[in-house]
C-alpha cells in the first residue's frame, strides 16, 4: 500500500510518571497540529491530580537519585546521550513536525542537544569541586562547604519560543545532574522532543520518578506548581504574568525560582553548560568539626 493511501496510526502521547506512561486521570486530551495545521497526534491533558502524582513520584525518588554516587548519575546521563544518538532521525522529525524548520536546522539542534547532554553528564561528579570549598576559619576547626541537591524541581518549558528539544534538555539537565528529581511540563505547542526523551529515559536507566514529563495547559499547570507545598525549586520559561504568578506562589513555602524569558537563547553553549546554572537547584551545606584536642 502506498504511503498516501495508508491510514496513519494516530498516536496519543501519554504522560511519563513514576517510570510508567499513564493517560491523564481526567481522561482529557489535546489535539496536536503540525506546522501546517494538520492533526498529527493527541496529547494527554494533565490535570492537577496528574501533576500532584508526578510531584509525589519525584519526591519518592529523591533519596535514591540524590543518594547515588555521582559517578553512577554521570553514567546514567551519558547513557541518555547514547540513547538519544540512536534516535537522531526521530528527534529531527519531532522538531520539524510542529515548528516547520528546515531539516538542516533541526539536525543542528539535535546534535547540540545530544552534546549538551554529554556535557552535563560530565558535571555530575565535578560541580561539588567547583562550587564547594574548604574554608579557612579563624579557629581550630575543619570546615567545608558542599553543594547538595535541594529536592524536587519543577521545570516549566511551557511557552518557550524556540528550540523545543535543546531547551527542554537545557532546563532539565542542571537540576537532574545535581541529584534533584524533576517534573517537567513540556512545551505546549512543541512537545514532541520532550515526549521522545520521556520514552527514552527508562532505557537509559533513569530510575522511575527521577524524571517525570507531563503535557497540558502550561499556564494552568504553572498556577498549581506555584502553590504546591512539596516542590523545592522551579526552573521556568515564563512571560511576565506567569513569572509573577510563580514567584508569588513560591513565596508560600520559599521555593527557589529561576525564571527565564520566553526568547531565551539555548544555543549559547557557554551560558548553558556553565556551573552557575546550577545555583537554584543546590543548597550549600557547611560542616564544622573541631580539629584540635
Amino acid at each position, binding site marked *: 500500500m502506498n504511503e498516501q493511501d495508508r491510514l496513519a496510526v494516530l498516536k496519543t502521547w501519554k504522560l511519563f510518571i513514576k517510570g510508567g506512561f499513564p493517560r491523564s486521570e481526567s481522561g482529557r486530551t489535546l489535539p496536536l497540529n503540525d506546522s501546517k495545521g494538520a492533526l498529527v497526534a493527541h496529547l494527554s491533558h494533565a490535570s492537577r491530580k496528574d501533576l500532584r502524582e508526578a510531584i509525589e513520584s519525584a519526591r519518592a525518588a529523591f533519596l535514591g537519585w540524590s543518594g547515588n554516587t555521582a559517578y553512577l548519575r554521570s553514567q546514567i546521563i551519558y547513557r541518555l546521550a547514547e540513547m538519544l544518538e540512536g534516535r537522531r532521525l526521530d528527534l529531527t522529525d519531532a522538531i520539524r513536525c510542529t515548528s516547520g524548520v528546515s531539516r538542516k536546522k533541526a539536525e543542528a539542534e539535535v546534535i547540540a542537544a545530544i552534546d549538551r547532554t554529554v556535557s552535563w553528564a560530565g558535571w555530575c561528579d565535578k560541580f561539588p569541586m567547583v562550587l564547594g570549598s574548604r574554608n579557612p576559619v579563624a579557629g581550630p576547626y575543619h570546615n567545608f562547604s558542599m553543594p547538595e541537591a*535541594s529536592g524536587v524541581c519543577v521545570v516549566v518549558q511551557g511557552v518557550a519560543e524556540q528550540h523545543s528539544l535543546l531547551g527542554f534538555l537545557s532546563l532539565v539537565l542542571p537540576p537532574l545532574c545535581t541529584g534533584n528529581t524533576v517534573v517537567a511540563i513540556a512545551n505546549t505547542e512543541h512537545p514532541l522532543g520532550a515526549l521522545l526523551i520521556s520514552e527514552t529515559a527508562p532505557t537509559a536507566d533513569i530510575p522511575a520518578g527521577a524524571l517525570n514529563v507531563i503535557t497540558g495547559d502550561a499556564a494552568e499547570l504553572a498556577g498549581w506548581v506555584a502553590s504546591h507545598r512539596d516542590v523545592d525549586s522551579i526552573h521556568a520559561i515564563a512571560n511576565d504574568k506567569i513569572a509573577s504568578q510563580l*514567584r508569588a506562589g513560591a513565596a508560600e513555602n*520559599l521555593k527557589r525560582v529561576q525564571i527565564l524569558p520566553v526568547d531565551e537563547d539555548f544555543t549559547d553553549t557557554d551560558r548553558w553548560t556553565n556551573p*552557575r546554572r546550577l545555583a537554584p537547584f543546590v543548597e550549600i551545606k*557547611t560542616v564544622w568539626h573541631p580539629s584540635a584536642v
Partner: protein
Amino acid sequence: MRKVLGRGKYDEFMADALAGNSSPTTWEYSPAPETVPVVIPDQTQLYVGGKFVEPRSKKWFATINPATEVTLSQIADGDASDVDAAVSAARKALKPWEKLPASERAKYLYRIARRIQERARELAILESMDGGKPIKESRDVDIPLAAQHFFHHAGWCDKLRYAMPGTREPRPVGVCGQIIPWNFPLLMAAWKLAPALACGNTVVLKPAETTSLTAMRLAEILQECELPPGVVNIVTGAGATGKALVDHAGVDKIAFTGSTEVGKQIAKACAARGTRLTLELGGKSANIIFADAAIDQAIEGIVQGIWFNQGHVCCAGSRLFVEESILPEVTRKLEMRMKTLRVGDPLDKNTDIGAINSKQQLTIIERYIAAGSNEGCTVWQPSEQALPAKGYWCRPTFMTGVQPAHIVAREEIFGPVLAVMSFRTPEEAISRANNSPYGLAAGIWTEKGSKMFDVARRLQAGVVWCNTYNQFDATSPFGGFKESGFGREGGMQGLAAYLSE
C-alpha cells in the same frame, strides 16, 4: 507540671568539685561590671548621602535598655520619603563606587574593619546596653566577628572573578535594601554590608527597631573612614520603614534576616517586580546526641546551642534529640550545668544570660513556656538566683516529656527554651530532625566518624556542627535549606548574592 529545682545533691556535688573538698561550699561571685563610659546622644539621626540628617517624618521613638527599662536615646523614625531619599543617594553613588578600582574599594573596607577593632570596647558596651546581651558575648563574639567580616570581604574586592566559577567579569547587582534583626545588631549589619560593598553595590540599611545604636555608631565609623557619600545609607525605623524599602521601585535587591513569617511577606512583595532576594530566616534546629558521644563535651554544646545570646539565635539548637539509653544521664548533667548559669546584668563580665531583648519578646517566650507546660511537658528552670527587679528576664529553661506534635517542638521560640526528646535509632533521629519546615542548622554529637558524616549528609540543614555548636566565621557560608530561607552569607559562596553575571 512545673518543676522548680531546689538545692539538691547535684549542687552539692558541683560545689564539692569546685571547692576540692567534701563539705558543701557556696561559691560567690563579686560583681564585675564593665566600667568604660559610653556617650549616647539623646537623639539619633538618619545617615543619608554621607550626612547625618533629621528624619523627614520629624518623628522619633525611644530605645531602651532591656536590662533596666531606662530610655537610652530617641531613634529617628524614617518614613517612605526618608527611604526614598536614601535610595536616591545610593543610586547616585552606585556608578562611581562600581567604577572605583577594586583595590581602592578594598582599602575602604580594610579601614572600616580596623576602626571597628579600635572602637570594639565602645561598640560592645553599646550593644549590650541596647540589646541586653552579655558583655562577654558582645566583646568576644559580635564585635570581633563584625570586624572580621569587613576584613575578609575587603580582600575579595579585587578577586571577584575567582569567586564565581564561569563568570569573567562579575558585576554588582545595584542598589541593595538590607533589613537586619535585633539579635546580633552590628554583626548582622557587617554580614550584610561587607559582601555588598566588596561586590561594588551601594546600600540602604534598615536596622531593627529595638537595636539601632550600634548601626548609627557604625555610620560614624563609615564617615571617619571617608567612605564616599551614599555608598551606605542607614534609615532607622520599625516595620513600616522596612516595608517602604522593600516596596521601593529603585531597589534592585533585598536581603532580609528575620522571621520566616515576615520573610514570606517580603518574598511575595518582591514577586511582582522580580526583585532579587536573599532570605535568612527562622529555625528550629536539631541537636542530636548519640550514646557514643563525649557526653560532657556534648553538654557544653547543648548549653552553647540554646543559651547563647538568651536563645535569640536563628540557628539555636532548640530541639535536643538524645539517644534513649543516655537520656537520664544527659538530663541530670544538663540540669546541673544549667544551674551554674548566671542570669543578670549584661554589663557584668560574669553574666552568662543577659536580658531578653524586649518586653514583647519576653511575653512570647513566656507564652511558649506556658504552652509547653499545658501540653504536659515537664519544665526545668533553676529558681534560686534572684532576678533583677527591673528589666526583662527569662531563666534558662528546658522541657522534657516533649512530643513531636507539641508546639514547643515545632515553633521557633527565639528564647532560652530547649525541647528535649529521645530517639532510638539514627534513622529515627534523622527523620525527626528533618521533619520541620525549617532547615537552618543542626548539631551532631558522636565519636564515630562514619556515623557523623552519614548523618551530616542526610540532615537538611545549611550548617551542620559536629561535636561543636554555634561557631561562626567570615569565611564560612551561613544560611538555610527549606523555609529557613535561601542564599548564603559569608565565604566565597556568600558573594553570589551580590553579583550578577
